[in-house]
C-alpha cells in the first residue's frame, strides 16, 4: 500500500505557488475551483485566478494537472512530456491549451504538476446518455463533424520537425513504427502480474507477422475521439489528452476513428461523423489516401493496447497501489477485448 495517491492539495497551496510565478501580482484569489473526475491518469483542477497587476484587475482561467503517483500509464506518459508537447503545439494552428508552468519538484504540491490554460468549452462524455444526445444533435447540425475531421487533418499535417516534436522519437522507416508500439505494449503487459493469455500471445504473433510498412511519419495523437476534444459552440476549442502521442503512421489515428471501439449504438464514427464524410474530408484536407488494410491492422494493435491498459489498470488495484474500484472492474475487460481480437483474427 506504499504507492497510494498523494495527499490532497488546497486552494491556498495552489494560490501560494501561483504567487511565486506572478511576482508582480497582488490580491491573488482562486474562484470556482473544481476538481474534475474525468480520466484515470492525472488529477485535474479547474479554476479562475483573480489578481491585480499594474493597477488593473485580471482573471486567468487555469487548469492544474498533478501526477497522483499511481496513474494508469504513469511510466509511459509523464506530465513533463505533456508540457513539452503542449509548448511545441503552441507554434501550430492546432487548438490546444497554452502551457504555463511545469514543476517536477514534489516538494511544491506533493507531486509533479503542470498548469495550463483553461480553454472555453465542454467535453461531453460519449459514454453517457447526455453526451450521446449532444453528439447526435451536433451531427445533425453538421459543423462539429467537419471540425472533428479538420482538427485531425491539422494534427497530421503539422511540421513536427519544425516545432521540435522529434524529441518524441522518430521511428525507423518501414516496420519501425509498429514494432515500437508492439514493444511498448508488450513491456507494459510484462510489468503486470496478470496470468498469461494464449489469445494475446496469438494476437502478438499475428501483429509481428503482418506489420504494414510505412514511410510516412506524422504526429499521432493516439486517442483521437470525442471525449478527448473540448467543444465550444460546435467548434473544437482544444485537442486534449496528450498522453499517448507518438511520431508514426497517421493511419494509427485514422484506425481509431474508424473503429467501433468509440461509438455505442450508432453508425457515426466517434458518435459524431458519417464514415464517408470523414474519409472524403480527411483525404481532401491531408492529401493522404486512407489505407483501410493498415487501419484493420492498427485496429488489432489497439486490441493489444487495450489488453495492456486493462491488465495494467486492474493490476494497480490488485497490487494495492490504487483504491479506485473502476480499476478493479477492468480485470473483466481483458477477456472482452480478447474475444473481439479473436473474432478479428477469424475465430
Amino acid at each position, binding site marked *: 500500500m506504499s504507492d497510494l495517491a498523494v495527499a490532497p492539495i488546497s486552494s491556498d497551496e495552489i494560490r501560494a505557488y501561483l504567487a511565486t510565478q506572478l511576482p508582480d501580482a497582488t490580491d491573488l484569489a482562486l474562484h470556482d475551483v473544481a476538481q474534475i*473526475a474525468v480520466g484515470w491518469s492525472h488529477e485535474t483542477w479547474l479554476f479562475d485566478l483573480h489578481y491585480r497587476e499594474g493597477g488593473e484587475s485580471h482573471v486567468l482561467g487555469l487548469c492544474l494537472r498533478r501526477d497522483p503517483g499511481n496513474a494508469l500509464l504513469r511510466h509511459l506518459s509523464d506530465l513533463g512530456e505533456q508540457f513539452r508537447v503542449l509548448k511545441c503545439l503552441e507554434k501550430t494552428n492546432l487548438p490546444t491549451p497554452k502551457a504555463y508552468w511545469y514543476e517536477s519538484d514534489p516538494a511544491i504540491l506533493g507531486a509533479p504538476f503542470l498548469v495550463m490554460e483553461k480553454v472555453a468549452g465542454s467535453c461531453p462524455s460519449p459514454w453517457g446518455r447526455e453526451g450521446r444526445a449532444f453528439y447526435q444533435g451536433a451531427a445533425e447540425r453538421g459543423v462539429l463533424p467537419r471540425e472533428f475531421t479538420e482538427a485531425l487533418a491539422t494534427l497530421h499535417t503539422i511540421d513536427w520537425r519544425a516545432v521540435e516534436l522529434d524529441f518524441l522519437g522518430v521511428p525507423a522507416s518501414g516496420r519501425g513504427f509498429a514494432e515500437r508500439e508492439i514493444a511498448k505494449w508488450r513491456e507494459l503487459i510484462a510489468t503486470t502480474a496478470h*496470468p498469461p493469455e494464449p489469445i494475446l500471445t496469438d494476437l502478438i*504473433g499475428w501483429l509481428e507477422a503482418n506489420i504494414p510498412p510505412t514511410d510516412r511519419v506524422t504526429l499521432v495523437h493516439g486517442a483521437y475521439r470525442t471525449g478527448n476534444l473540448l467543444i465550444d459552440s460546435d467548434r473544437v476549442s482544444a485537442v486534449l489528452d496528450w498522453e499517448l502521442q507518438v511520431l508514426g503512421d497517421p493511419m494509427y489515428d485514422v484506425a481509431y476513428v474508424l473503429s467501433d471501439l468509440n461509438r455505442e449504438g450508432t453508425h457515426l464514427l466517434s458518435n459524431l461523423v458519417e464514415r464517408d464524410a470523414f474519409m472524403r474530408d480527411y483525404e481532401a484536407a491531408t492529401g493522404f489516401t486512407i489505407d483501410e488494410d493498415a487501419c484493420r491492422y492498427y485496429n488489432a494493435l489497439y486490441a493489444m493496447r487495450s489488453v495492456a491498459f486493462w491488465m495494467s489498470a486492474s493490476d494497480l488495484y490488485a497490487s494495492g497501489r490504487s483504491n479506485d*474500484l*473502476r480499476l478493479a472492474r477492468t480485470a*473483466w475487460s481483458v477477456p*472482452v477485448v480478447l*474475444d473481439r481480437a479473436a473474432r478479428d483474427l477469424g*475465430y
Partner: protein
Amino acid sequence: MTEDELLQRLSATLRTEIGPAIEVEYPKTQAFMAAVVTQKLGRQVGLARVHETAEAADFNALVTDLQELTKSSPKLKKLDDAIAAFDGQRSKVELCQVIDALYGERAELGEAQFARLLARIRVCLRSSIDRQMEYAA
C-alpha cells in the same frame, strides 16, 4: 448459500440500497462499481468448477491433436519442446509457449502446417474465451 450466491446478494445490496443512499459522487460511483465487481466475481466463482473441467478436457484433446499433427513433420526443437512441456503441464503458460514457438518456427514449418496447427489451437482458444465471456461480458 453458496459463495457465488453470497456475492450476487452482496452485489444486489450494493446496487439497490448502499449506492442509492450515498450522495457524494465519487463514493457513490465506487459503490455501484463494487456492485459490478461482486456480480462478475460471483458469476466467475459459480462457473469455476465447470470451466476448469471443460478447459482440462480441451487441453487434453489439444495435446493429443498437436502430437498427432506434428508426428510426420520435420523435428523443430522449439515447437517440439513446447508441445512436450504442454503435455507435461497442461496450463495456459505452456500453451502460450506452444503458440510462441509456432510463430517462431513458421518458416521452417511451412505455411500449410503452420495454418493447420494454428487452426487447431484456435478452436481451443475460442472455446476458452467463450467460457470467459459467460462471466465477463
